[in-house]
């Protein structure tokens, strides 16, 4: 059952061929055996997990199950879950047992899914390799010498290693798509505002968006059906009618217009990734799609604009961690200000501090216009580039990441090199568009390559259809690492 998709698992549960307790136990056993090496989970609590599974079994026995009742899932440790340690990968929250559920967790509980544990991540979701976690780096199941990507690296490694059927992630600049690409998974960042951010620990509030990470587009559609929806508690949640994101999965692709931004295939893209992505695009042509060249002329400015906007928002959001109401408080201090300064110096890791300092600077008197407002103007230029491109195509495709997974430690000392890992994903967050990554082959060192699909606003169902049709025609998504 460890390789099964969610529909197959749901059918087995509904048909009483397996109970949720039995299914969950299989995955808990795999976690116990393999997590010490992979470090994909920060918290596993079999007692809580089994209690949830028993209640799912009871619900199924009463005939009250939904499409995902009894299915085990792992949640990124950025989602507050009542009674669970919720650390966000930080020493700052290493003692924080959440007193409430995030909306995403609440919705999965209502659907009857079972929480297997909380997955490792870059500290406060700031990183592209999972190396900034207070709980140590996660290994890529395809190659233990490689990073899994980040920031949702624990979720990605857990799904790839079949420690969970699927997981949640969040994406501020590529944190679902890049680890999905580097671990050979399917991951979707929805249109900004589709998934509630309530109870999802904030990094950059105008960019953060939760989404599913799974083995297939079909599984992502089923998960998004649960995750998406209006939430009055998130002031940027969109009031839209509920959608069935799986409704168009079987639609044919004939006539689909795929836009290929020339900037995605320029200097900086490694040859192995280019080859796999071009082969995937050739497969789409065989499936009836046509390709058109488009241009995103301001894309190269997305990294600088992002590294002003995201740190600015982070410096504001993370000011809540002051050692007063929750989180780490320094054991010794002279006065209130000293308590803040020491608690934050001890509780935050180096990358988080760097970003808070950048954000503080760009928002400070005299620099606000030159940095923050300029970045916001560039953000509009980038969003306008996408609108222009979507006039001549239905979807945009390109690489998710310029390279396959890099070696652990290779970029850890050079923040700028690390930031450039997200060159193809960041623009999508700045524009608020939906983006996904699907596996499309292997590159150097037999490490996975991801194809990025970017849709226009609210085109998730179409993107999932386009991904699903590719997955019907190819088998990259069913390959699993040998462990």
């Amino acid at each position, binding site marked *: 059952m460890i390789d099964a998709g969610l529909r197959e698992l749901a059918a087995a549960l509904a048909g009483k061929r397996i109970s949720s307790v039995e299914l969950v136990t299989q995955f808990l056993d795999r976690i116990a055996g393999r997590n010490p090496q992979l470090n994909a989970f920060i918290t596993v609590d079999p007692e809580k997990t089994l209690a949830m599974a028993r209640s799912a079994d009871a619900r199924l026995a009463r005939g009250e199950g939904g499409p995902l009742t009894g299915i085990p899932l792992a949640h990124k440790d950025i989602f507050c879950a009542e009674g669970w340690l919720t650390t966000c990968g930080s020493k700052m929250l290493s003692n924080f047992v959440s*007193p409430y559920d995030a909306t995403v967790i609440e919705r999965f509980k209502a659907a009857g899914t079972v929480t297997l544990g909380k997955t490792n991540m870059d500290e406060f979701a700031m990183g592209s390799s999972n190396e900034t976690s207070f709980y140590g780096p996660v290994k890529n199941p395809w190659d233990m010498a490689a990073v899994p990507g980040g920031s949702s690296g624990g979720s990605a490694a857990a799904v790839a290693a079949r420690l969970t059927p699927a997981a949640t992630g969040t994406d501020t600049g590529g944190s679902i798509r890049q680890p999905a690409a580097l671990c050979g998974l399917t991951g979707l960042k929805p249109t900004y505002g589709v998934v509630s951010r309530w109870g999802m620990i904030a990094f950059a509030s105008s960019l953060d968006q939760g989404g599913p990470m799974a083995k297939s587009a079909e599984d992502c559609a089923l998960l998004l059906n649960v995750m998406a929806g209006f939430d009055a508690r998130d002031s940027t949640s969109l009031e839209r009618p509920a959608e069935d994101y799986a409704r168009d999965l079987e639609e044919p692709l004939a006539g689909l217009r795929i836009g290929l931004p020339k900037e995605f295939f320029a200097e900086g893209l490694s040859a192995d990734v280019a080859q796999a992505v071009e082969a995937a695009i050739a497969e789409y042509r065989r499936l009836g799609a046509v390709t058109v060249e488009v241009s995103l002329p301001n894309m190269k400015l997305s990294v600088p604009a992002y590294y002003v906007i995201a740190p600015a928002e982070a410096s504001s959001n993370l000011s809540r961690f002051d050692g007063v109401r929750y989180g780490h408080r320094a054991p010794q201090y002279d006065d209130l200000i000293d308590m803040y300064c020491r608690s934050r110096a001890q509780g935050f890791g180096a990358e988080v501090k760097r970003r808070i300092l950048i954000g503080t600077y760009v928002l400070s008197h005299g620099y606000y216009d030159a940095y923050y407002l300029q970045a*916001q103007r560039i953000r509009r230029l980038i969003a306008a580039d996408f609108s222009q491109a979507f006039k001549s195509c239905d979807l945009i495709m390109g690489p998710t990441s310029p390279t396959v997974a890099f070696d652990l430690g290779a970029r850890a000392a050079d923040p700028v090199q690390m930031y450039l890992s997200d060159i193809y994903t960041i623009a999508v967050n700045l524009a608020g568009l939906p983006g996904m990554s699907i596996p499309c082959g292997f590159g150097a060192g037999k490490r996975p390559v991801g194809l990025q699909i970017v849709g226009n606003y609210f085109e998730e169902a179409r993107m999932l259809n386009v991904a699903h049709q590719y997955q019907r025609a190819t088998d990259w998504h069913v390959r699993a690492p040998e462990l």
Partner: protein
Amino acid sequence: MSLSLDQVRRIAVLARIELAPGEAEQTRDQLNGIFSLIEDMQAVNTAGVEPMAHARDLAQRLRADRVTEADRHADFQKVAPETEAGLYLVPKVIE
């Protein structure tokens, strides 16, 4: 642009992050590396472009000013470093 050590120390004070002795130098070098990346956007002419503060220019939704949550005071204070009689304790600020 290049940050001086004094600027780095000043930013750290504003951000309420203590810098250990010797940490300011390394921090300055790393921040300057990041700012050299950010500088790429300074040359772009954005005259007349309206700043975009939020994805899709969303307007903040307002809600009625009424109580919607139950009082879970005790649960929320359970995770606090130090409380007394329902209050959060901090070092004395007024003599």
